């Protein structure tokens, strides 16, 4: 049984169609990322899955429950964990008190010491929450999300506003969890986050899924064209290449091709034979970001890791 089933989901707010038509499945134990720009509908989808919002249309099943069914919502919540976009921790309790309190909400909680260990807050367990750094508070937030030993964990933009080292810390916690078989549904607008964590990515834009697949093959990036770049000294002639190259000032070559093996063979054979220095040779596949830009037609905003860019 899949952990999550979503079929033709739709939701609008006050005439604004936030989610048009979204269909996907998440297998048990899988890490699934919804990747998309701000306003694409990611959070709306995840809030419907959590049972926080009602859908207008479509079928949704989460761990076998309909999240809109009030009669089973408590059972569902006992098996799911949630980490919200915003840091949501009380300032005055100690780290251990906050975790112990929330552990009591669940029928089979994870031992608090184990959670402390997992999120790296063992040394801080008796400190007040307000004395923690932002990154530490976020790790407590993650800890509160997993203290009920959830079968399914929702992470809504878990590292927005983090510095790079805090992000890596958060990723490690998520990886440690998924090693234990927890299913994870996360939203993000960071390419590298989707690439680092997810088994499968769905790109959502304007309320629709525009592509879906493993991060390595999304949008045909594993079979699509390759970009080869290099520079040649001015004295060298033109290499005999099987495809057209774009040459700019200073002898910089850029070749976009799906015949990269042939091009490289021709180039390197020629360079060895003629004893030409090929400088700065790089071979690049499409990055996830290229694919994303192509699919959504716009750059991921709030892409700066400081998270300071707020759309007003």
């Amino acid at each position, binding site marked *: 049984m899949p952990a999550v089933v979503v079929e033709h989901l739709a939701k609008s707010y006050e005439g604004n169609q936030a989610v048009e038509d979204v269909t996907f499945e998440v297998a048990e134990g899988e890490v699934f990322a919804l990747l998309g720009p701000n306003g694409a509908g990611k959070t709306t989808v995840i809030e419907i899955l959590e049972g926080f919002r009602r859908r207008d249309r479509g079928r949704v099943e989460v761990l076998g429950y309909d999240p809109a069914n009030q009669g089973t919502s408590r059972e569902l919540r006992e098996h799911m964990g949630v980490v919200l976009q915003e840091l949501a921790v009380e300032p005055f309790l100690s780290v251990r008190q906050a975790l112990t*309190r929330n552990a009591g909400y669940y029928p089979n909680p994870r031992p608090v010491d184990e959670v402390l260990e997992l999120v790296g807050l063992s040394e801080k367990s008796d400190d007040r929450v307000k004395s923690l750094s932002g990154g530490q508070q976020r790790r407590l937030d993650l800890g509160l999300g997993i203290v009920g030993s959830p079968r399914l964990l929702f992470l809504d933009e878990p590292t927005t506003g983090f510095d790079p080292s805090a992000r890596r810390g958060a990723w490690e916690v998520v990886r440690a969890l998924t090693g234990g078989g927890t299913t994870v549904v996360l939203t993000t607008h960071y390419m590298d986050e989707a690439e680092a964590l997810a088994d499968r990515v769905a790109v959502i834009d304007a309320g629709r899924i525009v592509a879906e697949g493993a991060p390595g093959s999304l949008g045909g990036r594993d079979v699509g064209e390759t970009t080869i770049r290099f520079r040649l000294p001015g004295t060298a002639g033109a290499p005999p290449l099987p495809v057209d190259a774009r040459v700019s000032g200073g002898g910089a070559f850029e070749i976009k091709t799906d015949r990269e093996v042939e091009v490289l063979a021709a180039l390197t054979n020629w360079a060895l034979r003629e004893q030409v220095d090929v400088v700065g040779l790089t071979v690049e596949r499409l990055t996830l970001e290229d694919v994303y830009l192509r699919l959504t037609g716009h750059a991921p905003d709030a892409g700066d890791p400081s998270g300071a860019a707020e759309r007003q």
Partner: protein
Amino acid sequence: MTRGPATGGHTRAMGDVVLMARQVYYEQLNFWLNPIGAVFTVGFSVIFLLLVGSSAGHQRSSALGGGLLISYYVPGFIAYGVMAACFNSLTINLVVRREMGLLKRVRLSPLPAWAMMAAVSANALIISVVQVVLVLLIGRFGYGVPFPHNLLALVVVLVVGAASFTALGLGTSTLVPNQEAGAPITSVVFFVLLFLSGLWFPLAASSGLAKFSSYLPVRHMIVAVYDASIAQKGVSSWPWHDLVVMAAWGVVAAAVAARRWSWAPRQARSGRGRRLSGTGAAGRRRSQ
């Protein structure tokens, strides 16, 4: 997972009582560990009573028919204690929690909504009782103010008052748009109402201020506690009229709370970049 329907329901019901008791414990912990909250609520009534008692306490007031001021302030600060805990402190607390996303997080945990609401209300009630007892003891043993002459009436007033002002706290929290405004708006409104309603100085019943403030619940709480506590010629110790007005305010406030309640923040927080996240956050974003 496999729970028999009969025993399962029973176990769950027992479990829920324990769950709520635990939640009240953590609410208490949270309250007393927050120095500002504790000082403004409990500390304020105690300190003010001590200050007034040591200065003007033994003057007599014509508005009280020549009664001692201190025997006005003791019931006054009993009323204050209940209103501060159930209304002022509860409103601010709920707004802060809502805007911080704490209410949403609770909503998404298995803790039932009723258990959270009950725990929050019980917490306010406990803080009220602590203050009532402190003020009574200080009044009695510090300044010789006799214990309330109709204790049963006082208990009824405190129960109705606590329920009404808790409802007012829940309702008002839904009207406060954001966290920054939560404490200032609520406290200013609260202290202005206390002033108009005669907490700081007794109002003659015929005065314009007394007439005006009799439309609002605060004056009725002060008068009701006073009437139940201090024997007066020709005045019943059962302030039915005041109880009815407070209860009516409570019912209206509860209806507002039920209608406008939101578990989600009404405003996107400014610290981190946010976008359309739902009904409230998008439409009511602060413009700056």
